[in-house]
Structures are given as C-alpha cells and as structure tokens.
C-alpha cells in the first residue's frame, strides 16, 4: 500500500496539553500509522487522496436548532478532556484533525424538540457533541454537494440518553471523507440512519463503542453506487460492557463499473457478557463490472453472547420479478421498483423524505435489462 505514507508529525494543541490524552499521544499515533490494522482499513481504497483532504481550509458547519434551550456551542474551547472519547490507536487520521483544526464543541443538556442540524459548507472543523445523561435529541447532518471535503464528528452519549442521528451524503463528483466516533454510556440508545450516494470517492468511517452496560446501537445504511463511482464504508461496533446490543442493516446497490466496499466489524470484549449483535449486509450488483467487496467481521472474546452476521451478493429475486410482471408491469419497470424497494428497506429517520428520491434517482437513467 504505497500511498499509506505516514502523515506529517503531530503538533499537540493547547487544549490537549496536560490531559491524559496527551500522554504518549505522539507515540500512539506513530504506532497506529504503521500497524497492520491501518493497512486493513485502507485495503480497498487509495488512501492518499482522502488523507490529503485534510490540507484544505476548514470552516465551521452552519448550525440550526442550536438556539433551543439546553444547547451550548463553544468555538475553540481552551480546554477539553477527551481522553475517554478519543482512541488514537483506532483513529489516527481523525486524531490528527483534532490536533490541527479549530474545534466546535456542543453540549446538549436538555431534551430537544427540534433536530440539531449540521450543514457542512465543505471541509469542516471537527465537531464534538456531548449529550448529557437522560437527554433525548435528534441530530441531522447534510453537506454541500460537489465540494471535496472531510468531516469528523465525535459524539458522547451520557447514560440513558437517546440520540437519533441521520446523515444524507449526496453529490457525485466530490472526494469526501466522513468520520464519526460515538461512545454510548449505560442504557444509552444510539440510532444512525445513513443514506449515501457514491461519488468519485466517498469514505465513511464509523466507530461505535458501547461502553456502558445496557447500551444499544442501531445502524441502517442505504447506499447507491452509480456508474464508475466509489463508496467505502468502514463500520466498527465494540461491545465493551455486559448487556449491550447492536443491530446493523446495510443495503448497497452497485451499478456497472461502480465500486462498493463494506467492512462491518463487531468486536465483543471479554467483559461484554450477555451481548447481542446482529449484522445483515446485502449487496445488489447491476451491470457487468460492478465491484463489491464485503467483510463482515466478528471478534469475540466472551462466550455468553449471541452474534450473527450475514452478507450476500446477488441479483434481484426471480419470484418477486415474476410477481410484478404477472400484474402487467414491464420487466424494466419491475426491476427498477425492486431496486428502489431494496434501498427503501434501509431508508428511515428524519431525513428519509429527502433521502428516498435522491438515492433512487440514478436508477431512473439506468438501463434495467
């Protein structure tokens, strides 16, 4: 992997100094860059272009819903303790962002009636959102299409909090890197609805740690990779404590000469007894030269768990196709309907209305033979 060159050296920012995170930060960072885990993460995607995105000038995202009571926004806080939220080993590139750019910190301490919306203008400041215990809220993310850009988001869910997070990522010509790291404390409930179109290269890194007993995470992802475009999803869910549960449903459609990479890693730590993790990844290939890579991983260190995953690559179901045709629907129309249905199964949440049409739009122009 020649283009996985080591990133430029770290300059630790002021807010990081004298925090636990600063200890061994540089050493951890160097080690993370060189290890086999990082090579695995970039196995199917040329890393250099994505990593270079960090050089672009960054702006704050445009916020809405932040005027609600209970939301405190701080630009460039002078001191932040992120030791338990940030793990350098797992995310060296995202950590480098934290060190390099100004930060936006948002604390949410009361239930929010309206969604908190982040609208990225392009390359963005890292955003850290602290959701206090017992708070429930909705978070939505959208980005300007057709800008090369990258965003890093760190979410900390306090005990018994509930966050519904929806993210629409459209625009076909950009290079786009999206990093989300979520930490869910005891009995916290996190739900992510990811709707994305592939672009020249769109890379989504999602890391979820279920650190408190009873924490739960749910993820649905509907992805449409149109002709010659590329989308790489790297998702890790770690069950660290007992009685944690996770559910993932990822549906990808890949058109001719498109490329989809999916890595869904479930890591059950030794102490996570009585955990339950399920993952289903279905991939539909249209067109002769679609590339579909999928690797659902299980890393399990406790026997008292229930884990299952399934991944399939296939075509449309013949019986379903015949059912539609027998009702007079022409085959090409029937195929399009079934493809749309396939994506719709994973479209949900507060941004679903905008997502549905955007995701199926490329299907209109496709020849469905």
């Amino acid at each position, binding site marked *: 992997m020649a283009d996985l060159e080591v990133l430029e050296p770290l300059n630790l920012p002021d807010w990081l100094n004298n925090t636990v995170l600063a200890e061994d930060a540089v050493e951890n960072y160097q080690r993370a860059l060189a290890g086999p885990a990082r090579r695995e993460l970039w196995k199917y995607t040329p890393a250099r272009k994505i990593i270079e995105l960090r050089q672009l000038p960054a702006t704050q995202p445009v916020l809405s819903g932040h005027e609600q009571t209970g939301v405190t926004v701080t630009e460039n806080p002078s001191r932040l303790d992120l030791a338990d939220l940030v793990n350098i080993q797992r995310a060296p590139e995202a950590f480098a962002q934290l060190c390099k750019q100004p930060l936006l910190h948002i604390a949410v301490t009361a239930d929010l009636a309206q969604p908190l919306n982040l609208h990225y203008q392009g390359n963005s400041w890292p955003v850290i959102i602290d959701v206090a215990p017992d708070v429930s809220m909705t978070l939505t993310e959208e980005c300007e299409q057709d800008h090369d850009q990258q965003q890093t988001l760190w979410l900390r869910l306090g005990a018994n909090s509930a966050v519904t997070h929806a993210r629409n990522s459209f625009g076909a010509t950009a290079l786009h890197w999206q990093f989300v790291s979520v930490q869910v404390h005891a009995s916290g409930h996190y739900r992510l609805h990811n709707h994305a179109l592939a672009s020249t290269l769109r890379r989504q890194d999602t890391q979820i740690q279920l650190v408190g007993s009873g924490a739960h995470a749910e993820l649905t992802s509907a992805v449409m990779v149109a002709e010659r475009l590329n989308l790489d999803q790297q998702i890790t869910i770690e069950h660290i404590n007992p009685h944690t549960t996770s559910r993932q449903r990822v549906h990808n459609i890949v058109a001719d000469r498109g490329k989809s990479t999916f890595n869904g890693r479930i890591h059950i730590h030794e102490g996570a007894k009585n955990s339950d993790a399920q993952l289903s990844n279905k991939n539909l290939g249209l067109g002769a030269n679609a590339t579909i890579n999928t690797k659902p991983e299980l890393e399990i260190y406790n*026997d008292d*768990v229930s*884990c*299952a995953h399934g*991944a399939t*690559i296939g075509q449309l179901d013949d019986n379903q196709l015949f059912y539609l045709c027998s009702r007079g629907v022409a085959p090409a129309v029937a195929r399009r309907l079934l493809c749309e249905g396939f994506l719709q199964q994973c479209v949900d949440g507060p941004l679903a209305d905008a997502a549905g049409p955007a995701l199926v739009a490329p299907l209109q122009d496709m020849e469905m033979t």
Partner: protein
Amino acid sequence: MSQPSVDDLVAARREYSAGFVTDVEADTLPPGLNEDVIRFISARKDEPEWLTEWRLQAYRQWQEMSEPDWPHLHYPKVNFQDISYYSAPKSQTDGPRSLEEVDPELLRTYEKLGIPLHEQAALAGVVPDPEQPSSNVAVDVVFDSVSIATTFKQKLADAGVIFCPISEAVKSHPDLVKKYLGSVVPQKDNFYAGLNSAVFSDGSFVYIPKGVRCPMELSTYFRINERNTGQFERTLIIADAGSHVSYLEGCTAPMRDENQLHAAVVELVALEDAEIKYSTVQNWYPGDENGRGGIYNFVTKRGLCAGARAKISWTQVETGSAITWKYPSVVLRGDDSVGEFYSVALTNNRQQADTGTKMIHMGKNTRSTIVAKGISAGRSDSSYRGLVRVSPTAANARNFTQCDSLLIGDLCGAHTFPYIENKNNTAIIEHEASTSKVSDDQLFACQQRGIDTEKAVSMIVNGFCKEVFRELPMEFAVEAGKLLEVSLEGAVG
C-alpha cells in the same frame, strides 16, 4: 452432591497420547540456515542440479521477504537460525525401504500411534476387512526429514498410480515434478512457502493417470521426533483428466517444552473432470496448558482446478499445534469447476489458530462451498479467515459460506474475518456466521436425562461438527470424533 458446572471442568488436565519420544540414533544437522545447509540437504537426497538451484533461488528470494504481521496470532519471534533443517534416523539414511528393512523401533512408533504398517491394514486402528477394498490404505511414512516406507507400491503401480516420496519422484519422474512443482504455490507466494521451497525435506508425490480411479486411499503420516528441528514437508498431487483420488494426511509430534516449526507446502492439480479429495486430521502437539511448547504450524495448501469440471475438496480436523496458520485454497480456473472446504478447528488451553480458506473463482459457472466450524476453549484464540474472490471473467459464480463458532468458557476468543471480493455481477454469494456457546441449560438438560457432563459436551460438539465429519473418509471420521473427545477432555468449561 452437585454436578460440576461448566466452569469447574476447566481445571482438569489434558493428556496428549502421542507425546512420547522415539529413541533412535539420528543424523541431525546443527542449527542454522545458509546456502551450505541447503546444498547439504540437496546432496543428502542426491538431488539433480536443477532442484538444488531451485532451492537456492527460493532461499535468496526468501531472504528478501518478511514474516506476515496481519494474522490474529501472538507468539515470540521465531529464530530461524536456531533450527536444524535436517534430521533422519541413522538406520534410514539410505532412503526408503520396504517394510522388512525398516528399523523396528520406528515401526513400533507407528504401532503406538495406531498406524500398523502391514499391507492389509488401514489407518487409525479400524479393523481391516479383506473383503472391503476401501479398508486398504497405502501409507507413506515420514519420520522427521525422511520418508521411511511406502506401502502398497506394487499394487498401485499395477493401476498406473505413482505414489512415492517426493525425494524419489524427483529421480524417477523428473519431468512431472519439474512441470508441476511450484506451479500452484510459487516460491515467492509467501514467507513460509519461500522457506519451505528452500529447505523442504520430504513428502508425498502422487500421480493418477487419465481416467483412473485410484484403487485405494493414499495417505502420508508425518511424525516429528528429533528436537530443535523443523519439519518442512512438500506434497504434490496430480490427478490427470478424469481421474479420482482420496488422500489422507495425519500428523503427530512429541511433547516438548520448546516450540517446533512445521512449515509445509501442499500443491494439488486437478485436470479436466478429475477429482481430488484431501483430508487432514491434524494432531500436532498443542503445548501444555500454560502454552509451553507445541508445534508452530505454518502451512500453505492450494489446489488448482486446471481443467473444466475439476473438483477439489479439502476436509480438515485441526486440534493440535500451538500456532496454526493455514488456508487450504482452491483456484477455480476451469469452467464448471468446484471447490469445497470443510473444517473443524479446535483450540484449547493457549492454542491460537488463524485458519481458513480462499476460493478464487476465475472460470465460468464455478461453485464453492465453505463450512468452517471453530471451537474455542480454555484461553485459546481461534480465527476463521476466508477469501471468496470472483474475478470479472467468472460468470455465474456461486459461493455458500457458513462459519460457526462455539465458545466454551469466557476466557477464549473466536473470530471471523471473511473477505468477499466480487467483480462479476452474475455471482451469487451467501455468507453466514454465528456464535454460540455450550450453555449450562443445554448441559443440564442432558444431565437430567442421565448423561454425564463430559459426554454431554462431547455430544453437543459432535453435533456442531456433524456437517464436517460427514465429509471425512470413514477411517478419519472415527479418528476425528475420538480426537475431539480427547482434545476437549478437561477443557470443557
């Protein structure tokens, strides 16, 4: 009186019945690896110049390579200069003999292991029935670096089948060896294959002529005996068009406190309409309950379905070795070719395994089936690593993969790393994996019906492995079941 719970049983000791050492004088090279050692090995085996050069070329390339760091394994670095690369019992230094000429001490070794070397006997102690041709198994016996005997050679020769040590085949059938050696696993393929290509000791060579169904099962039995040596067997099996062969591989080693290295290469070539069935029941010494000693098993096994409608099946039961790194694979080049992989991998105490398979679909209408069952107990760690790759030319490829892990106890690990890389949209690929445990509820249900805990666990585990055991040739199926029981003794927890 209370029944022992699953946790209580983890304390009991496990017995490795093959752990004895055979007392024979051996001719052993001092430890170290350099070009002279390679020339020595080659000269000892009286090899032709081209093969010596082939080894040296592999060695030079190996020196540029580095050990893979991606497997899910943790072990102290191997010092390749600290191993002896050749050892042979003094009585056998003139090459393989007929049974009458074999050192009786060696024969006793195999008898103790349950491998009687009479011409009527079957492997693994199954009572032979003279009426049943299938109970005759031809055996090539390898002790450290040399093959010491091959049975049934005449009977096989009558059918046109060549089954002999590779050291012999190099001299008697050089054209075949030259053509196929390294054709499926090239010298540069990976670090351990490179090492093996330089220093390989002995192994079996099999050639089945066109249209011939090999009249009996063939097998090679590997025994490591001498300390501080490595075992580098090399096996090459060629099934010509329309032929069929079933091959069994067995292995054991003595109990020692130091680790010993086993880096083998097995190459299979199946031409048009041919079928090769390769079964392994691996019982290398796994180390003691503290992880001391045990074999490091780094093996490259690959089959090439070179012709249309060829079929290669790998079936393995792995219960031994301290560290296992092996991925028996099939390259499905011929149209309509079929690859199968059935595996049970058991790890206990402090064993670690990173094992699986690769199915590479290249021709049209190719099919592969993977059924991998992992059982982890004690403080062991077992990973399934698989690759299903469908190339753009592989129209209508079909793959079905089922990986299941059974965890016994909360100190072990079971992992699944399945890589699926698809570049042809007519493929249908299905992968499923699940994890379960032997629960106290299940055990209680058995106990309530009068079945003791160890038997209950054995039943549950056997049921878990049923699909794989079904694929083993009869002789091995019996051995496998017993091996699993023994391996789980005391680890049940």
